[in-house]
């Protein structure tokens, strides 16, 4: 089957346009107008507030580190690991995040809580929790996948530009030290630990009947 041919109409240009010179002059006029507008705004110090009104006429950029546009509440920033009440990570090293990660930037080495710990034999924790922030594409799949609300991207900050590549490899301590944009290291979702008063229920010894 022969392919369909789409015949494009030749643009209808007048001789003056074809000659190009006049059009160049017009273009130069436009740029000159903008040059004049921008320069007069800068010289008079009368630039519009681009933070509040990005569509204002004239100089529309901001001096980034001095002025910042606010991030949306659900904007995905650098990861943090949320804390439990006792300061240990909520993470139970289930590897759901590293499985979901399309960039494969999360490495977790699970470990068992030490003998004597209340969670020994019952839960695990991440001995190593490493995110390669250079590989990360900030898709948020890890946050979606996390069943324990242990990893969040609500820090409101983006990656710092470090000098050394290894600085971009965030380890557990670094991730645990990150704070959400509201200043908390915890998560608002409740968590019930076995033995907590918030963890009621019948069991074999303290029956309900």
């Amino acid at each position, binding site marked *: 089957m022969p392919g369909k041919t789409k015949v494009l109409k030749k643009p209808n240009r007048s001789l003056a346009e074809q000659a190009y010179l006049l059009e160049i002059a017009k273009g*130069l006029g436009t*740029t000159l107008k903008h040059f004049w507008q921008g320069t007069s705004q800068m010289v008079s110090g009368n630039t519009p507030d681009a933070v509040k009104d990005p569509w204002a006429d*004239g100089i529309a*950029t901001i001096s980034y580190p001095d002025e910042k546009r606010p991030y949306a509440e659900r904007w995905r920033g650098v990861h943090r690991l949320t804390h439990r009440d006792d300061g240990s990570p909520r993470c139970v090293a289930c590897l759901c995040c590293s499985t979901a990660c399309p960039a494969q930037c999360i490495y977790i080495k699970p470990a068992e809580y030490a003998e004597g710990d209340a969670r020994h034999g019952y839960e695990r924790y991440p001995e190593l929790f490493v995110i390669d922030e250079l590989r990360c594409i900030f898709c948020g799949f890890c946050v979606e996948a996390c069943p324990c609300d242990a990893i969040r991207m609500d820090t409101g900050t983006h990656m710092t530009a470090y000098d050394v590549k290894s600085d971009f490899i965030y380890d557990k301590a670094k991730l645990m030290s990150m704070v959400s944009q509201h200043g908390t290291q915890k998560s608002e979702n409740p968590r019930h630990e076995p033995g907590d008063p918030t963890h009621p229920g019948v069991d074999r010894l303290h029956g309900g009947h």
Partner: protein
Amino acid sequence: MLLFWISAIVKIALIVGTLVNMAAILLWVERKQSAMMQNRIGPNRATIKIGSLEIRAAGLVHSIADGIKMIWKEDWEPVGVDKFLYRLAPIAALVPPLCLFAVIPFGPTLYPDHARDLYDASWAQDAMRAVPMQITNLNVGVLYIFAVAGAGVIGAALAGWASNNKFSLMGGLRAASQMVSYEVAMGLSLVGSMMVYQTVRLDEMVTWQTQHCWGIFTQPLAFVLFTTAAIAETKRVPFDVPEGESELVAGYFTEYAGLKFGMFASGELVEVCTSSALLVTIFLGGWQLPFVQLTGFEFHALGIDLSWHWAHFIVVIVGVLTFVLKCAGLIFMQLQIRWTLPRFRYDQIMKLGWRMLLPAALVNVLATGMVLLFLNGGAHS
């Protein structure tokens, strides 16, 4: 004789120093101008801190930072380059535009002995005591310019060839063919002017324009053709396919870094200055300001006779300033063209060069000849 040598050395130092620094200043102009045109703030963050004083100079410090960066950057050379040619290329790219300025008159001749006197034509008889505002006054003038400008292609071609990189090679090829093509149109476009001025010496061209009228009025088509060809020669937008980053990374200087890259970049900006100076000299009356003669301000028309005599050195200063300001205007226009026009396609460039500019230049020569013949009443001039 002593005056000649001292003045020559001072003039050379002044011009080379100005031109090289102009590259840095033009870099700033280009950035800030484009920022203003594009509703941006532009560069302003480089700071020199002296105690609590912070000098930002509206982004001019960036040019200094760039210079320092280029000097201190690793002088990296890729594997497999032709070392000699690779190192020669940036020099070959920067030197011709600097040399071009040698024959451009940038002011009226200065007679230091009569600095405070009113101009008198008899001073010119003592040639040894005159300081022409021109490094050297060659009797081949414009031809020298074509020769040296033609050498500019060598730098780009060498860089493309020596870099051992296909992108560089393509860029070098494009640069060479484009510059050779436009040189033809450029040369022919000036033939009409030479016929009108009856000379190839640039100082005499300025003198002719002082006595009659500016070249842009006698040769308007040549002005357009020459401007176009000159922009093409500088390899800047819209004629920047030799370094077209969308297809060739950075063209013929892809493999250059540090100061070598800086020489290419500043060579380009010096070319902008030089071509502007040439345009001013040939078409815009050079250092000449309307109604300012060597004796001062003279207006004798419309029944008004105004005469305001200036000391000789003031006239020279006014002349030099006039030249500088005219150049600045043209430089601004050339930079503005860069931020206004999109890049031509390569075949469009070739078509424009050979099928538009060249015939137009030939027609211009023919028309000029016919007009001159008519004006001179058919007599052999």
